[in-house]
């Protein structure tokens, strides 16, 4: 106890996979919150007429817009899968250490895989 207060170096803290799933669940949720008004705005412009539709299509042709879309797609994939895992844990599925660790790795990998596939569709 003599060591307190403990100095927490954020760059040296080594999170277990479930810790990464947890913090990324928060970050992806916050990103999706920010994406919602943007999405409604894009929908509004795209349905406003021929000119609006073309202007949105042109915006989405820009690499930066596609990169932002890719980020939101990762956020959605991660948040969705980590959320499913959360619901499973709520009903006591896979709460033992081995299964919880395996499912958290699966969430991280699957979200990454979905993002890679989306990147290939968007940029190739």
């Amino acid at each position, binding site marked *: 106890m003599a060591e307190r207060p403990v100095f927490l170096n954020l760059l040296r803290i080594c999170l277990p996979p479930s810790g990464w799933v947890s913090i990324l669940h*928060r970050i992806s*949720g916050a990103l999706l919150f920010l994406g*919602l008004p943007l999405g409604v*705005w894009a929908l*509004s*412009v795209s349905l406003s007429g021929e000119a609006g539709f073309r202007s949105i299509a042109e915006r989405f042709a820009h690499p930066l817009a596609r990169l932002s879309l890719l980020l939101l797609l990762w956020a959605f994939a991660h948040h*969705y899968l980590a959320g499913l895992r959360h619901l499973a844990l709520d009903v006591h599925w896979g709460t033992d250490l081995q299964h919880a660790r395996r499912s958290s790795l699966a969430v991280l990998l699957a979200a990454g895989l979905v993002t890679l596939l989306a990147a290939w569709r968007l940029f190739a």
Partner: protein
Amino acid sequence: MKSASGSHTGTGTWLLQRATAVALVLALPGLMIYFLAALPADFSGWQALFAPLWLRLLMLLTVAALALHAWVGMRDILMDYVHPTGVRLALLLAVIVTLAGSLAWLGAILFGATWGAS
């Protein structure tokens, strides 16, 4: 004294977060498949995708669930990281205005209020 930024509402919001999560798990892939399966290259095709009434109702209900879900989640984040009560309440108000505004805007787009941005 009653706290300005918290009361005994935790179980209710927890349940709301879970219930809306289950609704979104089902509705969002359905909507994505509907749009991705028939993504048109022109405006009239795009407009036609929004013609069915069931689709517009499903979209509005889904975004309503999404807004409630996001409200609970953003509230959790603010309660964990923002401690000055005034700042926390101001940010929470901004979250609520953003979510309610997005939902109302979507309703105006889908159900054709001409005073909207469209």
